[in-house]
């Protein structure tokens, strides 16, 4: 395997559709909950330990070889808001296209056939990492980082936030990212060793779910979610 493949996959310029999504920060900005770098740090911390942890565990499990169709159902069960399910599947489909063009594999082809309109993005991400020859921990890091990197970039656009401050927020979250990735891999191993999908974390962020559903109905918005 080439560890450098992780840099390609985790690069914000990897063409998989993420740029059009704010990870809930657009709704938080509109509601006045995120106004500056300090709020952004709290928002990202909350998202990392909920959505980020769940996504990282799903990705690690897919990278370990757990049945992606079962993982997709587990992702659905952990995503109550229809708007977020739709966004996750749309992003999964977009990632699938980029993944099949960059690291083609029969496993990706099979998942694309099973979900022509897209499987949940973290599941596709894990299988992409696997196709790229990466480890479950790499997949977990990638998913965890995406869970905060997307909102930070969106906040720069939405608030005119100083980009150095936003990047500083991400850098200071690094130790927590390490812990989340470790927990995610642990859970993924438990799923594999004990055959129990419910070993996957189900940390939820009810406010993200609620505001995502409302955001989907806004007539004017900059981001798709």
């Amino acid at each position, binding site marked *: 395997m080439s560890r450098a493949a992780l840099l390609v996959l985790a690069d914000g310029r990897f063409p998989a559709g*993420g740029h059009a999504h704010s990870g809930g920060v657009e709704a938080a900005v509109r509601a006045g909950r995120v106004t500056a770098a300090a709020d952004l740090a709290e928002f990202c911390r909350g998202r990392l330990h909920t959505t980020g942890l769940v996504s990282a565990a799903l990705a690690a499990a897919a990278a370990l070889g757990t049945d992606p169709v079962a993982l997709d159902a587990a992702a659905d069960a952990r995503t109550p808001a229809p708007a977020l399910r739709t966004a996750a599947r749309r992003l999964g*489909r977009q990632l699938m296209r980029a993944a099949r*063009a960059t690291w083609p594999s029969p496993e990706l082809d099979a998942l*694309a056939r099973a979900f022509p309109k897209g499987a949940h993005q973290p599941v596709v991400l894990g299988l992409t990492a696997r196709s790229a020859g990466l480890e479950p921990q790499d997949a977990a890091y990638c998913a965890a980082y995406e869970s905060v990197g997307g909102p930070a970039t969106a906040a720069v656009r939405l608030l005119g936030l100083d980009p150095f401050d936003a990047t500083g927020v991400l850098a200071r979250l690094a130790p927590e990212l390490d812990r989340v990735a470790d927990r995610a891999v642990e859970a993924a191993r438990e799923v594999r060793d004990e055959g129990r999908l419910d070993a996957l974390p189900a940390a939820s962020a009810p406010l993200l779910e609620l505001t995502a559903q409302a955001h989907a109905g806004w007539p004017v918005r900059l981001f798709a979610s």
Partner: protein
Amino acid sequence: MHLDHTHSGPAAVSADAHRPDGTRRALRVGLGGPVGSGKTATVAALCRALRDELSLAVVTNDIYTREDAEFLLREAVLPPERIAAVETGACPHTAIRDDISANLEAVEDLEDEVGPLDLILVESGGDNLTATFSKGLVDAQIFVIDVAGGDDIPRKGGPGVATADLLVVNKTDLAPYVGSDLARMAADAEAQRGELPVVLQSLRQEAGVRDVADWVRGRLAAWAA
């Protein structure tokens, strides 16, 4: 990286001229240009001019609303199922150039749902003079500027003005009112573009979109040949 045509499942190679079932896909023509230059009006006029002779559909890329798609729906230039809107996350040029995944999904879904199609028009959200379409998304692109945006735009050049397959200088009827020198714009455009064609049009005058429609017919004949 190239996946061959016998590959099952959704198409993974964007510029591939064939659909997964082996049939030739629709010609894709992009329309880009600055805000307010008349892209949507040109798309509407093209739909009216071509809809009786071709099977066509439109993808719009609005920046923060669905207004362009809604304008086309309201004007009833095509049945609603032939118009799809893509959300671009505050960056219209990203969605047509750097990360084309959402637009590719939209064109493929249109072909699946209302196809077979001869032609798909992909309209960019209004952007700047450097915004051009990826060759992975469109087969040809039209750059639309207008006389009221300043008659020095052709002289300044830039990727859109200099390299688009067709340059349209729109709203020529306004030239006397805004002090724009049409002859100078045409000469500057020719100097920038060499052999590449330029059309000066006013959708308010009798000829309307005729020259652009003829150009599209020519590209379609070459595509089908």
